[in-house]
């Protein structure tokens, strides 16, 4: 399949880029550890002061487990190509793709996945360590089936997050200098996806409202599959919803990029 080859190349390039910046990546892991530490201390203090053993429906151990996993999963699905797309549009590199027999979307996807693989390996390793630690020190049982389901939801979550940010990137067609806009969007999506605190913490109404948005399915949902908060059928249902969201966002991305692309051509790049 020769048409596949060029995308494999994009994947490879992304992979190499990630290796080249491995030092930066490790540093970013260290700074990702800070909030986990702060939140863990916060939760210890809150649980120590509260009367019951469960707060917001989480036991202390579940909460700490959630905190660690949320930090890692949020990092795992995180994108970063928004700025590259902005550059492509701004500097006219995007035009290249309009004339070449290479789709911009599959190119970006392949490159993104290539960039993700090395880091994901490392984060998964860390996650494994956390799970083993929870098991050894706190005796938390994790069934192999759940781990398997978790891995599947994780792949879907990564794709979903890619699509979401592919949509956001389309802003570049309308605004040339977006500055740190994407960073603002990113941090809000992290909050809405349960990447900082479990969504239940902000109240039932908020949790239900957030459940209507796709973001929950990138962090909160995979973790709940793993930590046993969801029953088997709930987990399956969630997976289905993940896929539905992927379909919906794919359509939205398609639409946005078609309109944006038309604008790009009209304005002249």
């Amino acid at each position, binding site marked *: 399949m020769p048409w596949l080859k060029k995308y494999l190349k994009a994947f490879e390039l992304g992979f190499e880029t990630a290796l080249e910046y491995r030092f930066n990546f490790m540093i*970013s892991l260290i700074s990702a550890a800070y909030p986990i530490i702060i939140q863990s201390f*916060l939760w210890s203090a809150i649980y120590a002061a509260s009367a019951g053993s469960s707060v917001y429906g989480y036991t202390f151990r579940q909460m700490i487990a959630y905190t660690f996993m949320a930090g890692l999963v949020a990092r795992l699905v995180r994108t970063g190509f928004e700025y590259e797309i902005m550059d492509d549009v701004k500097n006219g590199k995007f035009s290249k793709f309009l004339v070449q027999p290479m789709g911009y979307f599959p190119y970006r996807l392949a490159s993104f996945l290539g960039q993700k693989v090395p880091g994901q390996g490392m984060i998964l390793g860390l996650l494994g360590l956390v799970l083993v630690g929870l098991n050894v020190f706190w005796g938390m049982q994790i069934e192999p089936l759940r781990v398997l389901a978790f891995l599947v939801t994780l792949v879907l979550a990564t794709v979903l997050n890619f699509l979401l940010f592919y949509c956001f990137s389309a802003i570049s067609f309308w605004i040339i200098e*977006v*500055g*740190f806009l994407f960073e603002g*969007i990113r*941090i*809000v999506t992290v*909050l809405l996806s349960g990447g*900082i605190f479990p969504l239940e913490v902000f109240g039932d109404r908020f949790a239900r409202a957030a459940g209507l948005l796709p973001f929950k399915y990138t962090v909160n949902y995979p973790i709940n599959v793993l930590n046993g908060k969801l029953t088997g059928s709930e987990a399956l249902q969630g997976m289905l919803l993940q896929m539905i969201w992927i379909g919906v966002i794919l359509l939205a991305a398609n639409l946005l990029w078609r309109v944006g692309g038309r604008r790009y051509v009209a304005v002249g790049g």
Partner: protein
Amino acid sequence: MWRWGDRMNELWREIKKHWLIYRLFLKNSLMAQMEYRFNFIGNLAMESGYLLVKLSYVVVVYRSGVSIHGLSPDEILLFIGTFVFLTAVYAGLYMINNFGLRGKIKDGDLDLILTKPVSLQFMATLRQADLTIFSVDALAGAVMVCIAWARLSIPVNLVTVGGYLGFLGISSVVSYCLFLLPQILSFWLMNTSAIAEITDSFWDFNNMPMDIYNRWIQQIGVFILPIFVVTNFPPMFVLKKMPSVYLGWALLLPFLLLGLVRLAWKRGLRNYSSASS
């Protein structure tokens, strides 16, 4: 004796001059920023996002409704408000300069400022400001502090308000020094972007009152790596929770750190080789 008076006059004149120039820096930064409308919106969005995350901690504290190590939610709001306000100072006034310092040293961009009759450190570390970030956080922080202040029925008088503002001043100086020091390493090391990133996220340790940490971490964070001094001391003073040892330390620390920064800066500058062309 008159000599000493002369020197004081000279010093006073220099301070006035630097303050005048600083105001011009702020004005110029604002004008330059307004040139790029959408960048401005982008920065606004970013800082609002970060603010939202900080507020989520407030929500967690209030909804849990418990007092944490003797601090009621309202008291914690005072801490977080102070943190947000000081984030305005750090992220709005210091950060761009700190992150830019490495590039300035590497590309030899200190050359021209070195020949100016003003303090080089002043020019290199305070020249730029992001007033969008500053305004968002300063406003939000002030509102949070005022709400907490009112709910806690803290009296408004010269001692409380003056003391609080005084400690805010100390915190501003301490954070200036604390976050500049690692950047000064750029005079010796070529690649310090990693250091920049690690120290920057270090700032968030102020997000919660230091009481949530255990004693050891508290002592380290006050006396060895004095990050906790930045946002804990002003509210601790108003809440009358400040041990006298801390009071003395708070008065000593700014001078200690400024001295250290000056020393490191001068040492580093001797290493400045310009970008030899």
